[in-house]
C-alpha cells in the first residue's frame, strides 16, 4: 500500500507543469463558454466526458454559431485523431496490462500527459500507476479550471506572469529529452518544417498528424540508410 502511495506521489510531482499550463487555458475556455451561454454544469460535464482542450474550444465556438450536433461531433473526432498516434507509441510500455487499467489510462491521454509519460518511460523506472496518476491530475485540473473560468475568468488579467507560456516551455524541454541521437534531431527538424508548412496549407489541426507521420517515416528511412551504410565495407 505504501508503495502505491509513493507511485501516486511521483505521478503528482511530475504533473505540476501540466497543471500549471492547463489552468489559464481552462479558465479561458470557461470564460468563452460562459459568454456563449453555457452553464457551469454544462462546461463541467463536457470537461469530464470529453477532456480535450482543442475540441472543447472549437465546440464552444461552433455552438455559438449554431452548428448541428453531428457537425460538432465530427469535428471533435478529426481534431483528436492525433491521439491514435500517441496511444500507439504509449502501448509499447503497457505489455499485457489489463483492459480495465488501459481503459482508465486512455481517458487521460492528452498531448501533455503523453509527452511527459513518454519521456519518463524512456528514462526508466516510471511505474504505470504514476503515469495514471499524472493523467488523472491533469484531468482534475482541467475540470476545476474550466468550471472556475465560468465564474472568475473575467477578473484574471491576461498574460499574468507569462503563464500562457508554461506548456510551450514544457514541450521545449520534453523535446530536448527526446533528442537521443542525430536521427532524433533530424526527425524533429523535419517535423518542425513539415508542421509549419502543413499548418499554413491544411485546415484544422491535421498538421500534427501529417507532419508527425512524414517526419517519423523520414527519420526511419534515414536510420535504415545509416545502418546499411555502416554495414558495407
Amino acid at each position, binding site marked *: 500500500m505504501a508503495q502505491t502511495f509513493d507511485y501516486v506521489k511521483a505521478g503528482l510531482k511530475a504533473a505540476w*507543469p501540466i497543471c*500549471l499550463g492547463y489552468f489559464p487555458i481552462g479558465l479561458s475556455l470557461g470564460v468563452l463558454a460562459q459568454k456563449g451561454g453555457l452553464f457551469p454544469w454544462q462546461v463541467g*460535464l*463536457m470537461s469530464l*466526458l470529453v*477532456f*480535450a482542450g482543442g*475540441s472543447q474550444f472549437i465546440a464552444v465556438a461552433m*455552438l455559438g454559431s449554431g452548428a448541428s*450536433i*453531428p457537425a*460538432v*461531433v465530427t469535428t471533435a*473526432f478529426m481534431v*483528436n485523431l492525433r*491521439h*491514435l498516434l500517441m496511444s500507439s*507509441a504509449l*502501448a*509499447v510500455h503497457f*505489455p*499485457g496490462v489489463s483492459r480495465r487499467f*488501459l481503459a482508465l489510462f*486512455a481517458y487521460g491521454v492528452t*498531448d501533455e500527459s*503523453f509527452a511527459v509519460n*513518454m519521456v519518463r518511460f524512456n528514462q526508466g523506472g516510471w511505474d504505470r500507476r504514476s503515469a495514471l496518476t499524472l493523467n488523472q491530475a491533469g484531468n482534475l485540473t482541467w475540470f476545476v479550471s474550466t468550471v472556475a473560468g465560468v465564474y472568475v475568468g473575467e477578473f484574471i488579467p491576461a*498574460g499574468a*506572469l507569462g503563464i*500562457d*507560456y508554461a506548456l*510551450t*516551455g*514544457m*514541450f*521545449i*524541454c*520534453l*523535446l*530536448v*529529452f*527526446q*533528442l537521443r541521437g542525430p536521427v*532524433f534531431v533530424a*526527425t*524533429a527538424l*523535419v*517535423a*518542425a518544417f513539415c*508542421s*509549419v508548412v502543413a*499548418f499554413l496549407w491544411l485546415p484544422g489541426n491535421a*498538421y*500534427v498528424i501529417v*507532419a*508527425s*507521420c512524414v517526419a*517519423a517515416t523520414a*527519420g*526511419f528511412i534515414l536510420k535504415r540508410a545509416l545502418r546499411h551504410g555502416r554495414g558495407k565495407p
Partner: protein
Amino acid sequence: MSVADYLLLTAGMGVVTYLPRLLPLVAFSRRQLPAWFVEWLELVPPAILSALIAPTLFAQASPRVFVLGKADLLAALPTLAFALKTRSLAGTVVVGMLCYWGLHYLR
C-alpha cells in the same frame, strides 16, 4: 439547445475523443509488434512534440501566416538553451514563462 441535446452532444464528443485514445493501447499492448513498427513508433514522440511546437513559434493563428520574430519564438531561444544546458523541466518552464512575460512587458 435543450438539456437532452446537450447530453447527446457531450456523449457523442466523449465517444469519438475516447476511442482514438483507447483502441491503439488495447490493440498494441497485447501482441508482439514487428520490429520496424516499434522502430518507427520510437520516432513518433520527438516528431509529435516538434510538430506541436513549431507553428506556435513560426506562425500566426488567424489568419494562418508565417511569422518570424514572434515573442513565442524569441522566448524559445533562451528556454531551449536552458533546457539543453540544465535538462531541468521545472527550471525550463519557469525560465520560459519569465522570458515570455518579460518580452511582453518590453513591448
